[in-house]
């Protein structure tokens, strides 16, 4: 990282090297974040403005990503879809982590019967395909953003729970846990002040990776018609509605597809950088 090293930022003691491989994904994620928070800043069009005179136009300067079968600006739709897609990614990962932390810490701290019971539950959950779980939930509740969050969240929780449990077991053995106990701190204080932050630290990167993965999952579900319904500009839904025109108007599939790939790639690469830095800082 020496040749490309530009100034280093300092974030609470963790050095984040600012370099091309980090700057580009960071910029891209920031752009998507802006689209999610204030889509109006990035486009003048409306995501629902139908223009029958200009349907299925290829990408041009006035329509960066072309237009769809109703003449709506595809770029605008992608920008407005960011909120739902990103929301699903964050929501699903958040839900997955909450479940994982609860189960992982319960199993790792209590041990014994509780650990065995949780272990069995996780094994069953692992054996259950995420897609099947999603179908089940959608069949019960109907397709919606919330359903997608719940489905993807529950589906990916067991993997995280395993990791959290492993971390808890490992950090429990650390010398500083015993040292804190020897100083007379209560068990709860030791868990809160030492065990939790140190066990979760290596998982920060995994969480970042999980956000990208959840977005891809959710898009996949929507593409299969199991996610948010097509009038919505959610990215998976865009893919679903563009499917019919894939032979004639490629941009309806390729453009949102590229954005999904870009987000997943950026978030993953940022996660890796973060992982690298955190591990470097830990030893």
């Amino acid at each position: 990282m020496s040749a490309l090293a530009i100034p280093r930022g300092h974030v609470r003691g963790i050095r984040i090297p600012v370099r091309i491989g980090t700057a580009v994904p960071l910029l891209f994620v920031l752009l998507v974040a802006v689209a999610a928070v204030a889509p109006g800043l990035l486009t003048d069009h409306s995501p629902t403005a139908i223009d029958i005179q200009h349907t299925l136009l290829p990408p041009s300067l006035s329509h960066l990503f072309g237009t769809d079968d109703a003449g709506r600006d595809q770029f605008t739709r992608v920008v407005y879809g960011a909120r739902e897609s990103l929301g699903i990614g964050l929501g699903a990962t958040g839900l997955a982590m909450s479940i994982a932390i609860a189960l992982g810490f319960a199993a790792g701290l209590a041990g014994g019967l509780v650990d065995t019971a949780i272990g069995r539950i996780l094994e069953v959950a692992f054996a259950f395909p995420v897609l099947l779980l999603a179908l089940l939930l959608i069949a019960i509740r109907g397709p919606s953003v919330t359903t997608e969050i719940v489905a993807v969240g529950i589906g990916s929780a067991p993997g995280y729970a395993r990791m959290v449990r492993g971390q808890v077991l490992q950090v429990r053995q650390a010398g500083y846990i015993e040292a804190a106990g020897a100083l007379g701190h209560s068990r709860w204080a030791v868990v809160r002040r030492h065990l939790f932050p140190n066990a979760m630290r290596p998982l920060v990167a995994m969480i970042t990776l999980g956000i990208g993965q959840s977005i891809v999952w959710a898009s996949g579900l929507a593409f299969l018609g199991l996610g948010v319904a097509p009038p919505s500009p959610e990215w998976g839904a865009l893919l679903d509605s563009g499917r019919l025109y894939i032979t004639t108007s490629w941009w309806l599939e390729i453009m949102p597809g590229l954005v999904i790939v870009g987000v997943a790639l950026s978030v993953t690469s940022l996660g890796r950088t973060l992982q690298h830095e955190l591990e470097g800082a830990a030893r």
Partner: protein
Amino acid sequence: MTEVAAAEQAEAGAAADAPLLAVENLRVSFGSTEVVKGISFTTRSGRCLGIVGESGSGKSVTARSLVGLAGAGATIQAGQMDLAGVDLTRQSQRSWRAIRGRQIGFILQDAMVSLDQLRRVGDEVAEPLKIHGWGTKAARARKAIDLLASVGVPEPEMRARQRPYELSGGLRQRALIASAIALDPKLLVADEPTTALDVTIQAQVLDLLAESKDRGTSIILISHDLSVVARLADDVLVMRDGEVVEYGQAHQVLHQPRHEYTQALLDAIPSEHTRGTQLVRPAAASGETVAHRARAPIDYSRPVLEARQITKVFRGPDKVDRTVVHDVSFELLAGETLGIVGESGSGKTTSARIALALLPPTCGEVLLDGLPWSTLPPAQRRPLRKRIGVIYQDPLSSFDPRWSTGRIITDALRTGPRPPSSKTEALARAVRLLEQVGLTERHLPAAPLRLSGGQRQRVAIARALAPEPEMIVCDEPVSALDVSIQAQVLDLLTDLQDELGVSYLFISHDLGVIHHMSDRILVMKDGRVVESGTADEVFEHPRNPYTQRLLTALPRLAQA
């Protein structure tokens, strides 16, 4: 193979008294950092050269350069580096393989890492034979067993079929030596060969090397431990920061050192001679003016900690019970140091953890100030914990990696009897503690990871002192430190005892350290106390055969 042939030719032509290995102006650098800065030495057949130095002195890199294993990125330059006429500076990776094992045997510190865990010990020992195309497979297997027998491995046939993890540390180290001497190399390079071993095992391994030397092998022994070197070396080379500080005959270097660094190293070795004195002498004071301790009197009527017949049984994964501590009793008086000495597996650390009430005893009881301690429910014990501090062998792992020095110490202050009322007060008291242990305000924001080993142990001592304890359990507090840093930390501990009257339960495998520090001593073996008494009683007139064996095994400078 041509190089080997050439080597053997050259060797035959060489005069009998010519040095076997001649190194002149050896320089090793990694990138722009020079770690070995032009050192020269020679060795002869049947003699041992000891290379002594503290960590970072470049002694290991020197050893590795001699076998072509200095590592990727190392640049080696030498005016001369000849082994029996073969120029070692001009070897390719390929020709090094022909030299290693056959011409030069290499013994590393940690046999656990050096031996492949998945292969049988016999195959590992026979490995150099195989590499150099010696004999048939069956002949090599027989030779491996002979080699194991020759290094004193009992039941060599059975051991050869086992895998390294099934062997004890001492046996593994012997297997490694067997492998190094398999082809009867003319030169053995041993890098800290006994550092990971218990003292009795260490003595056996050193004897083994001595036998090899008597048979005419030349040995280069690298060690941080002067007393180990004294036992084997004919010549000693003292290194510091990649340079030679002193080089000469062992007797002269170890008994009439010319350089003050060597003298300081020798002074820093704790032993029976250094009891009650400072290990680090002020530069001005010469040998004669030894400052004796002015310590607070020991209160013989008041035991601060009392262990009554504690026993600890662990149930292994194979459902077999193992008694790790067996019927151990002791009293720690106010202001005294009680040393517990023993080899690995003797139960000394388990006893310490029971004393700290971090582990409940299976039977027996520990009293704190004459009141129940180990039998208390955890919630009632917690407020009393401030009275016992603890210092570990590896201070770094006892600090939360996210915390700064300042936070570590202020946190400990809050558990004490006088918790600071404000952040300013907490910081001021943390600075006072740091100064007390020889650090300064500058270290307050530092992450312990960025401190040196000695500084880390000082932070650990400051943390232990913060709650104003009556006693501190010191579990191998200096075992991971260089001898001069060890001396500073031991001096600090005795100074603090003189000043504060704090008691120490001092655990170590190092008899010298124990003798230097302790008023009274417990010798432990296999979970039992085999001998106890005052330091002088135990060391001068040991009654138990095990203690006697320990003391004979202890390498001493006087033997040189």
